[in-house]
């Protein structure tokens, strides 16, 4: 999806489609859900007011804007930045809450670029080719990041599920 300019309509459509994933991403950058939601709102409002430059590739751009805003908020509110215990940024009809928290923690522990790639691929539905184009990275690099990220997630989720069973 490539647009040369953000219009209010395109931004609203982007928000409806990706707002929830962006808020979950903000959570995985260390914010509580309410703050992550506020950060996403602020980013979109700035775009609506024309305070941010329009991007050729809006989705990765939005992820980076949310990441930067999340880090700024964490820096400004260091004491409050820790995600409260039991704060959920994901929902799942079939699994228990402990498993949701395990996934959130595993995502939070990933290196920044790997986490971004996972979110773009899994929850924003971009292909690896699109991610490579959008992030101006070689396709092999993006594919490696994604593969490493999945390996780490698998390991961490497995360890946590074993601990829970014990």
């Amino acid at each position: 999806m490539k647009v040369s300019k953000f219009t209010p309509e395109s931004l609203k459509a982007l928000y409806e489609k990706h707002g929830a994933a962006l808020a979950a991403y903000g959570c995985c950058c260390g914010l509580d859900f309410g703050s992550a939601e506020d950060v996403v709102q602020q980013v979109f409002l700035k775009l609506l007011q024309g305070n941010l430059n329009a991007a050729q590739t809006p989705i990765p751009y939005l992820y980076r804007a949310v990441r930067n805003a999340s880090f700024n908020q964490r820096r400004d509110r260091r004491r409050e930045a820790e995600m409260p215990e039991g704060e959920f940024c994901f929902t799942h009809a079939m699994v228990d809450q402990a498993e949701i928290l395990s996934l959130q923690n595993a995502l939070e522990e990933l290196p920044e670029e790997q986490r971004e790639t996972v979110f773009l691929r899994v929850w924003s539905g971009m292909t690896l080719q699109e991610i490579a184009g959008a992030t101006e990275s070689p396709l092999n690099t993006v594919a490696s990041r994604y593969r490493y990220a999945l390996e780490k997630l698998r390991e961490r989720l497995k360890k946590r599920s074993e601990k829970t069973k014990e």
Partner: protein
Amino acid sequence: MPVDDNDLEKYLREFQPRAVRPLETSRPVRIPWKGWLAAAALVLLSLSGEVWYGRHKSGLPPGGGKSKTFKVEAIVEQRKTNTILLTKLALEDPIRFEEELEADSRRVLPDLQGAQSTLRVLTKE
């Protein structure tokens, strides 16, 4: 736990990001000190009302409280002026200075020569 990457991807997709509230396109401007400002205005208003009521009740004209202060200040100012004038007089005309001091002492010291002077009253007693 899914072993295959595709299965893991499917497993991850089953987790849905929590829904967010609708985009607020127009936000009210927040003034954090608005409450304090309102409280301060209220206090100021009640204080000024109290002062106005107090003045109104006692029948003092506006600025009536200031007139006493003004009088005291005027006396102090007059004395300062007198001292300056007397000093000047002492330098320029010592004879007139003596006369002035004598006249001044009559106003300040007890009267010993008049019909109702302190000395006469004491003598009678």
